[in-house]
């Protein structure tokens, strides 16, 4: 990736974070931590990888994203707005009556959302179903799925992993946002998901472990995943919950779903620079 492309993506990420803070602050509370930890991934996917058309969000043969950790919708909503799926102003309707942007992602409400999720563990199975359907149709699309590391405590994640492996779904690229925190605290202290790479490899995945805030590493890992045929891919993103805003980072692990006052918003935006 060229230096200017990296800088452009970093600038995109900064704007994503700014708008996500403003979006959640407009409501006064929300899932800020996990929305901020996946920003670089979304920036790379929507700017460099995914075959999607904001003007035709239901285009046949498009690449699809399933945000299995559906509570992090606000992060994705921002990126979809930045890409032109709907006006930026929509962001400030988050979770308000009649909004197209509900707390957990809803494919019937939001242009650009490919699958509704919200009950953790299910989205990866849905993504596997899409990848299987894509193979049946033969449209050569890629299906991307984002799961949380806490979400990996759900048994269904591993049922989905078995399906992806058994059906050789090499068109399915799964990302685990390893931000190390879940609703109640640190993942390691609740139910550890250590040896994560070994776990996925033992399920038959091509697993890569990278810095989830390095856009170049993310892009290159996706390229390697695409080149790997016959097995599904997982990319483990080493991330920081609340990334990019020291105030939120320092609150981890208690930054899953928090109130954001006007004062906090001002401080967060100042910290973001």
């Amino acid at each position, binding site marked *: 990736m060229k230096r200017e492309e990296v800088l452009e993506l970093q600038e995109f990420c900064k704007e994503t974070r700014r708008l996500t803070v403003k979006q959640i602050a407009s409501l006064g509370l929300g899932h800020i931590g996990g929305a901020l930890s996946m920003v670089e991934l979304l920036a790379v996917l929507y700017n460099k990888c995914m075959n999607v058309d904001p003007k035709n969000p239901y285009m046949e043969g498009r690449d699809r994203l399933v945000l299995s950790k559906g509570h992090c919708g606000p992060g994705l909503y921002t990126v979809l707005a930045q890409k032109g799926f709907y006006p930026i102003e929509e962001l400030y309707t988050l979770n308000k009556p009649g909004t197209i942007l509900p707390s957990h992602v809803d494919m019937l409400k939001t242009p650009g959302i490919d699958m509704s999720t919200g009950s953790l563990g299910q989205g990866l*199975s849905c993504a596997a179903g899409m990848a*299987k359907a894509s193979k049946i149709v033969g449209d050569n699309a890629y299906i991307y799925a984002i799961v949380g590391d806490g979400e990996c405590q759900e048994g269904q994640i591993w049922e989905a992993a078995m399906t992806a492996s058994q059906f050789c779904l090499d068109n399915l690229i799964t990302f685990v946002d390893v931000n190390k925190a879940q609703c109640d605290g640190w993942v390691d202290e609740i139910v550890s998901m250590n040896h994560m790479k070994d776990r996925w490899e033992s399920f038959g995945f091509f697993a890569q472990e990278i810095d989830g805030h390095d856009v170049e590493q993310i892009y290159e890992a996706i390229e390697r995943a695409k080149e790997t045929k016959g097995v599904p891919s997982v990319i483990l993103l080493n991330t920081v919950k609340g990334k990019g805003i020291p105030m939120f980072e320092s609150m981890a692990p208690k930054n899953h779903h928090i109130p954001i006052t006007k004062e906090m918003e001002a401080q967060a935006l100042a910290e973001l620079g």
Partner: protein
Amino acid sequence: MEMRKIFSQEVEKLMQTNDKICVISADMAGAHDNFWIQDKYPDRAFNIGVCEGNMASVAGGMSAYGMVPFIYTFSSFSGRRMLDQIAISICHPKLNVKIVGSDPGISATILGATHSALDDIGALRSIANLVIFEAVDERQLRQAIPQIAAYDGAVYVRVIRKEAEDIFDDDYKFDLFKADVIREGTDVTLMATGIMVAEALRAVEILKEEGISAELVNVHTIKPIDEETVLASLKKTGCGVTCENHNILGGLHSAVSDVVTEKYPVPLKAIGVHDRFSEVGPLDYLKKLFKLTAEDIAEAAREAVKSKS
């Protein structure tokens, strides 16, 4: 012919012309006569293994991609094991998945309590965007499958695997959303689903000999219930008996009660399993054990008629 064979034949017929239809089994391909379909359509018909919840979500994803998956398991697992996945991966996003639950209620016979779904309708009925249909016989099932496939939305199909008693004749015209008046009568309405239709039909004959004119309605689609037909019959007869192979809590009796209570209160008796788990045993034994026989229905009908005055 066994209902599972009718099912597989009719679905396969549709697959010949509709390349969106898929068949997914959760280690129940043999039980549902799907091996030959898997052989014929290896891409669209496959076994996903023992992971029913995952199967439901995979099917949701496939439907979001435009496919029309039929997913097969025992009804005991459709209601309990897949409940959250049916709600969140299928019904909330209004996806087009056909959920086939076999061996409902006491038809699981010797498999006993764990495999006898007496709660599947109750569990699933409160999920929005889901049609719930229970098949009665071969002629009905053959007509039902193309309509279910053509309906753009989630349908739960409750069906026995073995042979069903013939109820309908060759002139029968099925409508997924319209209940069938099988016998007309004036004194009491028997509303029945699945294997209980045959028992209710025998009850009609028992009652006829006693001078009680019973109307028999097959409420094959429990949700959305055909209010018009149910209410028209109850307005005519003034009382009813619901007959179901399910817990009386949450199933047909509850569905009919919901309508009757609000729109036309009349005496209503419940034939079904009264809030118990099933037992092991042959079908006839279980029908007697849970008071699901024609004589039990006739007795409930007599009481219903008496309670009108």
